[in-house]
């Protein structure tokens, strides 16, 4: 008898505390899994955003960033996808990389494994050429590419990333052909450009902003001029439809309680218009473009379809 009372009391207490959790989320620290090591671009985004997310979640919310580097972010994002969907484990998310990895190798997650919170950074692609190449306008570059298909070498970071998809889009839009030279990361590709070892490069705007005097920046792959470097023209202005970029944002495992998800998305949306946050991001070379909730899901889905389309026609491994 006493036992039953005990059990009932315990169950009651559990129900109460569960109810309280829903009402007062967050009541314990929230862990954000970053799939890269500390000090990388994604890590800096997470750590810069953390205090602002805490601020807009309110109630003394606390965020703990946990680095789980390895396999180009795949280890960390898999961990986040498989965590309990209780709102206490979030993860960073990179596009198009995270979707491309579900296509070019076996992954333990897919686009339906996540609750999409907000994409925070959109670092648009730029096309640059080395000073020694003599290709200092977009027209000159395209004319040379048409005259000698494959003669222009293009330095970029790895295959199956945003740089690669930008090149595919360029080749399709202009019916040209380039020779891809995939370096391990953007900095070595940029250095090869500076040294004139490759003629052209596809990088991101944050990576060339400091090197504008040493390289020819031919255009930015955005609809409108980027706030990050407004002096650089877009491709659209030059009559070329080319929009592409590298995106970084935050996800949670699929199946998040609706009120928790709404509260998180709300916090990210408020953060997007916080000037202090925007300044901090600009200082760490992170061009901000916040896309929250359903729109973010759609964006991911579109990028998956793009990657899948590319893979089906020209697989990169």
């Amino acid at each position: 008898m006493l036992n039953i009372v005990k059990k009932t009391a315990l169950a009651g207490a559990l129900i109460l505390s569960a109810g309280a959790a829903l009402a007062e989320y967050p009541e314990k620290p929230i862990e954000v899994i970053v799939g890269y090591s500390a000090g990388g671009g994604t890590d800096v985004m997470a750590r810069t955003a953390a205090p602002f997310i805490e601020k807009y979640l309110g109630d003394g919310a606390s965020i703990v960033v946990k680095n789980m580097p390895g396999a180009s972010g795949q280890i960390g994002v898999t961990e986040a996808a498989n965590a309990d969907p209780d709102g206490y484990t979030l993860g960073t998310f990179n596009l198009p990389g995270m979707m491309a990895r579900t296509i070019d190798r076996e992954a333990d997650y897919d686009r339906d494994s996540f609750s999409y919170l907000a994409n925070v950074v959109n670092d648009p692609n730029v096309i640059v050429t080395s000073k020694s190449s003599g290709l200092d306008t977009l027209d000159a570059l395209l004319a040379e590419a048409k005259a000698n298909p494959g003669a222009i070498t293009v330095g970029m970071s790895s295959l199956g990333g945003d740089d690669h998809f930008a090149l595919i889009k360029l080749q399709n839009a202009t019916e040209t052909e380039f020779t891809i030279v995939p370096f391990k990361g953007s900095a070595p590709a940029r250095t090869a450009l500076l040294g004139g070892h490759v003629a052209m490069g596809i990088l991101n705007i944050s990576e060339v902003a400091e090197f504008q005097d040493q390289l020819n920046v031919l255009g930015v792959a955005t609809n409108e001029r980027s706030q990050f470097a407004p002096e650089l023209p877009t491709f659209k202005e030059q009559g070329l439809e080319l929009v592409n970029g590298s995106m970084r944002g935050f996800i949670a495992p699929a199946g998040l309680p609706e009120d928790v998800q709404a509260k998180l998305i709300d916090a990210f949306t408020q953060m997007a218009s916080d000037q202090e946050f925007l300044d901090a991001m600009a200082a760490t070379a992170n061009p901000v473009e916040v896309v929250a909730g359903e729109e973010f899901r759609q964006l991911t889905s579109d990028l998956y379809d793009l990657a899948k389309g590319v893979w089906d026609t020209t697989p990169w491994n």
Partner: protein
Amino acid sequence: MYADLLNALPDVFSLANFAAVVIGVIAGIVVGAMPGLSATMAISVLVPFTFGLEPLVALGLMAGIYNGAMYGGAIPAVLLRIPGTPAAVATTFDGYPMAQKGEGGFALQVAVVSSAFGGVASAFALMLLAPPLSKVTLLFGPSEVFWVAIFGLASIIFLLGGNPVKGLISACFGVFVSVVGSDPIYGNDRFTFGQLEMLDGINIVILLVGLYALPPVIDLLETPLKTDGVKSSKLGTEPIWKALPRMKSYWKTWVRGSFIGIWIGILPGAGGSMAAFMSYNEARRASNTPETWGEGEPEGVAAAEVANNADTASALIPALTLGIPGTAVAAVMLGGLLVHGLQPGPMLFRDNPDIVFGFMWQFLFGAILLVVLGGSLATNSFARLLNLPRPLLGSVIIVLMLIGVYSIHGRMFDVYLMLGFGAIGWVMDRLKFPLPPVVLGLILGGFAEENLRLALRIGRGDPMVLFQNTTSLILVALTIAVIVGPSLKKRFTGKGKAQ
């Protein structure tokens, strides 16, 4: 620019900023001295904490750790033949024989003074010559970098002495290990057996600890009753100022090693271990008594240690000006800079002179502090390690190895891998296969492969792209000289005797 350099100086001496360097150096020496803990690891652990710190406090800690660890790695290398960091492998060649002869204390003093010399030279290169030296980096495209790697591998196989065939086999084993993981161009999995843990390849620290730390520990434990190591009276510890005059004659080796270290540092990827080997080789070639090298020649310790510290600050030259780190440690430090909004590039020196030049001063003072802190720490505490009974010492080292390797990624998989390499290392040791080529094979193998393939893509499949410019041709000539040089020399001297 030089005005900026001087303007940055006062801030470096503020209490917190200076204390950071001191703490960093001490922490670095300790970390470097533990087999399995490396400067890379210590700084990556530190980076998340630096978000809350003032930039110069954070950077001072990093500069201190980097300098400290490059010397700290020499301590177990000398005393136990276990290099504490990959860069200390060459220090074992003469350091350990010295310790066995009872000159361990002097070996450590040579190591610390040489390390400080290299560190100071490198800091000056960073402070005064960063922009021109970064232009040298730009000369090295994929084909040139490929030849640097081949030159490094050829040097280690053919110049290290002993049996070149065994050296070649060892190097091939190292190169094979470098193949494990994702393909550098296409990203296909190679020899990963479906393990996500192997996708990033095999961490150099896992291989180093397994190969180098396990066999000596097994040796230690095999002979538990052979009393307790070296007597403290035989350590040869005398105050460092009394030891200094004995090092006067090493100045040529120090200057040569500094140049080599600075040069290797500004090339992306190769790092301290290659610098130390090359400096050691060159110093031995220049020596009047090359036959004493490998048997406890203090100048060998000086050559290795000056070079592995001379690449520290210079590795930051391409990191700060181009965003490409010269070593794995510089890569992690780049992350630490980014955290504080310091974007690498030509604007860095103009936009944040106080912090950038302050950081360079901290490198200089970190190197100088080594003599004070390293000198006393090493001779007074670490050298006495050898007084421990062998079974105890062996067990302590095994525990440190396991903790160090586990803490790289926090997984047991790496520990098992390390033990596997340990078994291989023990067998190789018994069969007299040299271990250094394995380490360099892993470091340079992946590097050579990636750059060869990039170069061939740039040449659109035409191998002539590898011979198209002067820098490549010079490196090819050097490589050939290294391969045929020793046998030619032998033939000539052989003939001379016959006649």
